[in-house]
């Protein structure tokens, strides 16, 4: 069909699978950075320092409303202008991790805000410190509310990793570009990349929903 060549598919598959590993690694590292940094951003926004809160809010808003691809270029090219050379991987992980940490901080904030006020009051009555209250009372209870958003952004970060190809990270799209221009055949590499994305993101999304349902029923919700 349409000049589809299976022998070419067999030839390029090992390279694409190797690149899939890189894509998954990029998504994984980016997601871990986003998970951790996002929590700090969310807690920082709830602090009592007005100036810090405003700066964080506006900064998050800025990063959320500008294109990730532009941020990737910015991080990668602005460093060398000031004598700081970053490798594609480092620049890419900073950009994608920072971008998604802003999204995740909003998810956490929503989750934390949906924990009833009475929980805070009860923790105060028990003479718990602010940190203890977050760690032992608030965050565990906010998790079920935050899980759906966290899962969506896991799939989201995975689907955004192709943008790293522009600064030379060897993930799936970068590899497909290379295969395409070496062989003057774009049909198979791009189509296979599409199928690989589907084959990973659809089951992941389904698993996330399953897990979310499990946690919610375990916490006695619905």
């Amino acid at each position: 069909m349409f000049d589809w060549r299976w022998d070419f598919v067999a030839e390029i598959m090992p390279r694409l699978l190797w690149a899939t590993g890189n894509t998954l690694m990029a998504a994984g590292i980016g997601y871990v950075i986003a998970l951790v940094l996002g929590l700090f951003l969310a807690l920082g926004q709830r602090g009592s320092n007005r100036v810090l809160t405003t700066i964080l809010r506006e900064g998050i808003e800025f990063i959320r409303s500008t294109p990730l691809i532009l941020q990737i270029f910015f991080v990668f090219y602005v460093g060398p202008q000031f004598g700081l050379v970053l490798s594609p991987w480092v620049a890419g992980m900073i950009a994608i991790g920072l971008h998604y940490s802003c999204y995740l901080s909003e998810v956490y904030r929503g989750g934390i805000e949906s924990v009833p006020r009475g929980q805070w009051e009860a923790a105060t009555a028990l003479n718990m410190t602010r940190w203890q209250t977050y760690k032992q009372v608030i965050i565990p209870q906010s998790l079920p509310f935050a899980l759906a958003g966290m899962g969506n952004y896991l799939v989201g970060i995975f689907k955004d990793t192709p943008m790293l190809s522009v600064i030379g990270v060897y993930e799936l799209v970068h590899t497909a570009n290379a295969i395409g221009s070496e062989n003057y055949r774009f049909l198979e590499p791009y189509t296979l990349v599409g199928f690989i994305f589907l084959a990973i993101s659809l089951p992941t999304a389904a698993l996330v929903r399953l897990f979310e349902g499990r946690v919610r029923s375990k916490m006695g919700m619905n």
Partner: protein
Amino acid sequence: MTLLEFVAQYWPRLLTGTANTVALFFLSAALGIAIALVMALMKLSSYRALRWTAISYIEIFRGTSLLVQLYWVFFVMPLFGFTIEKFTAGYLAVGMNIGAYGAELVRGAILSTPRGQWEAALAINMSPAKRMWRIILPQALVNMLPAWGNLLIELLKGTALVSLISVADLMFEAKQINGSTFLSAQAFGTALIIYYVLARFILTPFMRWAERAMARKIGKA
């Protein structure tokens, strides 16, 4: 070179780039909204073939990357005999992608319209099409506008990807200026600020206004 000097020198190119970004935004938004509406109605249809077409469309476009879709439209479609000009390929890919996300918003909003509204429309003998158009969709529109505000910001950001197939949008101009001057902080920084202004001070206030206006129109505010 300070940011002001930079803007004074390069504003014509940044302006053309911004104009192209805005044009891409409107074209892909129009396409995306149309696709979202059609796919949502198809997914709610009682015909299995329509339902499955919509489900496949939505899952394929939501399950893969916009960049992969863009490359596919631009590099692979010509092999099937459809050579598409790059600007067209750009807004087609972005619009089709957003349409898939939008379809789920439309579907959710239609389903969340109270049961009584459907029954009342049936009771006064409205045809299904008229009921959808006159009763259900206006109320669904009010419910889904806030979510569309976020989706349209995603769309605006998504248009930046077309620079990778050399469409001369704002991102592309920033990249070109960076390539010839090596003033990366100024070039990319200015572009970031322009995208921020478009999203935060034009698109968001407009959507807020639209939300209020629509809510008033159906007597909700």
